[in-house]
């Protein structure tokens, strides 16, 4: 499974803490939870990530088991997720039940409330819903 996913940092993203954190988080998550690898391999989409309270923007570019993390937002990203650093942590802590994010515990309610109050915005959710669910599964440490 060692080479099942390939995660790289594009030039210019090395100094962005979030880029390095996500590289480590996803690589370690795939190593520790290999059942997540098929989801990772099926992802083929650019996902913009804006951390509103930290002024950090990156793009996760998934394709065929490879992820390249770019600095800034790439034009034409299928999904753009905007949230504060706390909400991003909560997203990574979402439990997955029956293959879907679980919104009925404390963390789930926190994420749902952030969505309702606009603290979490997901652009492109309607067109890329299956990818969003896959990303939730891949990112979840629970």
């Amino acid at each position, binding site marked *: 499974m060692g080479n099942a996913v390939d995660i790289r940092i594009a030039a210019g993203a090395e100094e962005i803490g979030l880029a*390095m*954190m996500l590289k480590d988080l996803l690589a370690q998550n795939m190593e520790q939870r290999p059942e997540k690898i098929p989801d990772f391999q099926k992802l083929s989409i650019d996902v913009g990530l804006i951390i509103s309270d*930290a002024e950090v923007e990156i793009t996760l570019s998934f394709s065929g088991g490879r992820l390249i993390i770019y600095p800034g937002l790439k034009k034409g990203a299928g999904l753009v997720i905007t949230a504060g650093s*706390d909400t*991003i*942590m909560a997203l990574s802590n979402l439990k997955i039940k029956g293959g879907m994010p679980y919104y009925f515990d404390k963390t789930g309610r926190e994420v749902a409330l952030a969505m309702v109050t606009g603290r979490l915005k997901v652009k492109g959710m309607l067109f890329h819903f299956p990818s969003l669910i896959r990303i939730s599964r891949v990112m979840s*440490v629970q």
Partner: protein
Amino acid sequence: MAKLKVFSDEWCNAWADKIRESKEFPIHNKGWEGDIGCCISKDPKANLPEDKYLYVNFFDGKVLDVRMADKETAENTKFVISGEYIRWKQVARGELDAVKAMMQGKLKLKGNLPYVVKYVKGVQETIKCLVALDSEFPDD
């Protein structure tokens, strides 16, 4: 009451006591195993002529150890957090959120990240206890 000089034994003990007094910490740290080394880079302009190393050890919601340490001890822990003195000071003063600082690259974490993310609320509670101390910094 006199301010606590940061990096002193009294300051380490006071931080450990604050965490022990916290009602939230045992809840969010439940199940945690592992020590943490904090590496603080020297900043001669801020009266910190040498690097400082802090060793923190928690186990399942209990504080086992909070003390100053040497480089080798701090760097051979399960998790290592490093950064410039000014960033640590901002965190300890509550002016900079530690998670945000990591996302911005102002603090760097080495170790099992999915594990830390699971316990992020416990980490935030320990920082809250640190912020609650009346600390005196070398450049105050």
